[in-house]
């Protein structure tokens, strides 16, 4: 209950972008850097890579990059303005200000979720910054002097991608399932091999605020976490369109509170949910609140969570982060089988989850702790993790997603704050360097981690901008 700056970007106002001081202070230390002319760079770690393999590209010139970005930005802007019904005609009044003096924006991919297509030797990652899905060779390894060239990139207006936070790869078909978080209430499924501005083969309407996704292959079920409603909805794996969930788990007994990652343990037929800890109660018996963004989604649906229009005023609580374990078939206001919570757990914005069914281990991408925590499958209460991957050699930077590739013995981590996807042995522990790294930017590129900036404030005392995300 004590973090300010995870999502509060401060930047010195009044300076050109090239000299802009960008501070995501505190718990995103990897981003505590100055741009080119600022000096005092704080680089978390740099390890020489002994073996660089896979597709790489050397950095183009600044001019080439600028021209490419300008063309793409213009095309995307016009598409989006049109799609959103934004006016191309003015509302009246004199247009002033011209183009912006400066724009604080990360031009590089910020990896939010990662999964491995083991059968096809590919790695799939979502990028919450530029709204794209990237496919890489599983064996890629890129030195600091280059960025990893994707095999394919899914991006564009037809994809309906926005702030994709969770990803699942169907091991049989290679299809990509990815949840849009917060802004578009859709879960998109793309056919394996899709490239460019392709339409999803399925587009499922989800409750507002879907984040994590896991699939139970044995029962052909797909489970999604819903942040805003502190709920889990279970769909048919092949669900599409306006189809309703087949089960709903929501209520104060569930222990679900601002849920993020989710993963299934097929052996014990349970699933794990990572919670940030904030929640409120909702009731279908109170007067339905009007004017709620994304309200009314429940009309015509069954097993739909009670949204913010049913929130009980003043019932909110801000609790310690946790991982709750539920039986796969739990519904309604069912109690958790187990709860992992407490200071010994080191949980600090637990985000992505992965499970190694053979070794019976749960992996946690611990965003604010810049660590990966490993718990025994049966851990409960204020349990300490059995292993903690953390330290400057790891190059972990606000990890938001993990994937356990048990076939190849690899642990994959998406570093939202580091422009990287890093790979370790599944049994890695402590301050262990990655065995391979995929990169979207050079190590000294500031990782802004601006995501859905709904507001901005000016701190006149310090001449800084405050940006919540």
């Amino acid at each position: 209950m004590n973090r300010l700056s995870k999502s509060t970007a401060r930047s010195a106002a009044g300076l050109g972008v090239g000299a802009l001081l960008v501070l995501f202070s505190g718990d995103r230390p990897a981003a505590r850097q100055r741009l080119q002319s600022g000096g005092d760079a704080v680089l978390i770690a740099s390890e020489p890579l002994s073996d660089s393999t896979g597709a790489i590209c050397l950095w183009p010139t600044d001019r080439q990059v600028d021209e490419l970005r300008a063309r793409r930005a213009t095309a995307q802007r016009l598409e989006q303005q049109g799609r959103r019904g934004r006016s191309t005609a003015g509302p009246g009044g004199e247009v002033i200000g011209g183009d912006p003096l400066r724009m604080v924006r990360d031009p590089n991919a910020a990896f939010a979720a990662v999964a491995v297509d083991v059968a096809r030797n590919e790695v799939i990652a979502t990028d919450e910054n530029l709204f794209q899905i990237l496919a890489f060779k599983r064996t890629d390894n890129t030195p600091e002097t280059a960025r990893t060239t994707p095999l394919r990139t899914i991006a564009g207006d037809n994809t309906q991608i926005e702030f994709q936070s969770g990803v699942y790869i169907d091991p049989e078909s290679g299809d990509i399932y990815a949840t849009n978080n917060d802004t578009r209430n859709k879960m998109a499924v793309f056919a394996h091999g899709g490239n460019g501005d392709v339409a999803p083969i399925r587009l499922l309407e989800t409750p507002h605020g879907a984040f994590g996704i896991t699939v139970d292959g044995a029962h052909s079920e797909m489970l999604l976490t819903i942040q805003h409603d502190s709920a889990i909805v279970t769909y048919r794996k092949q669900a599409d369109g306006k189809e309703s969930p087949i089960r709903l788990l929501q209520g104060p007994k569930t222990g679900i509170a601002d849920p993020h990652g989710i993963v299934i343990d097929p052996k014990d037929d349970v699933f794990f949910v990572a919670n940030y800890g904030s929640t409120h109660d909702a009731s279908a018996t109170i007067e339905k609140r009007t004017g709620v963004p994304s309200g009314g989604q429940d009309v015509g649906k069954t097993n739909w969570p009670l949204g913010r229009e049913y929130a009980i005023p003043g019932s909110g609580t801000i609790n310690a982060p946790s991982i709750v374990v539920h039986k796969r078939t739990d519904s309604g206001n069912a109690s958790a089988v187990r709860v992992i919570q407490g200071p010994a757990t080191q949980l600090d914005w637990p985000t992505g989850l992965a499970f190694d069914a053979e070794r019976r281990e749960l992996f946690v991408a611990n965003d604010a702790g810049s660590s990966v925590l490993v718990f025994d499958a049966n851990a409960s209460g204020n349990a300490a993790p059995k292993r903690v991957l953390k330290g400057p050699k790891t190059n972990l930077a606000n990890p938001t997603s993990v994937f356990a590739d048990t076939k190849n013995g690899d642990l994959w981590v998406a570093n939202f704050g580091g422009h990287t996807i890093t790979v370790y042995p599944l049994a890695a522990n402590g301050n262990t360097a990655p065995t391979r790294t995929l990169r979207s930017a050079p190590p000294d590129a500031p990782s802004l981690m601006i995501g859905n900036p709904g507001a901005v404030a000016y701190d006149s005392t310090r001449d800084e901008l405050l940006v919540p995300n």
Partner: protein
Amino acid sequence: MLGRTMHAIAYDAVHDEIFVPQQFGQGILVFDGKSTGEVAPKRVIEGPDTQLIALDRLGVDPINNEIYVPEGRKVLVFPRGANGNVKPIRILEGPDTTVLAARAVAIDTVRNLVVVGATPYGANAGDERTSELAIFDRTATGNAKPLRVITGMGGMQNIAVYPESGLIFGVGSSFVSVWRIDDSGKVPPRFTIGGPNGKLVDPRGVTINGKTKTVVISDKYLNAVLTYSVPQLFTSPATEAGR
């Protein structure tokens, strides 16, 4: 106590404090202005008496020491120094207010006014494309009528007031519109910033830097913060400018 889903922030320069809503936990977190890293908020407004539901925006009046929260049909007002489970000291609510769904709020501490960006009565409450700016006396409470209403805009996502110039900045479509605070009725904005047909795609936040005569806008689609130079808004008397 912060989450990854915070859609508002306010800075109080008089008391050097930062205010952030925690919409899932139904709370208002107040941090010291110099806070950095994992620090606890100095105050938390939370509990059943607060009537907080899903606070997405807030405004702070550092002169009169009040916090304003738009919550559906209501605008809740709390003492700035409130902590814990406290009741609002005023609630603006009712059909005469014209506010069907309040989306944003800003305070003019010079003229003692509060501006509410809202979906008006008569529109569908969920219709984000029909908006108004309802201007009240700062101490208005209950089913009070606004002093005046500026209408005719759509998709108002956020607002800011710059009391020194008497201007209202409304974040709506792919640009920011500027009205005079004494405008009334269905009138076009005096100015627009960033468009139409500019770089902005989906602006959400706006703040004013009087020192550099700039307006700073956050865009949720671009994942960016853009700064525009608009010195003409800071000339005296700025309120005579435009149209």
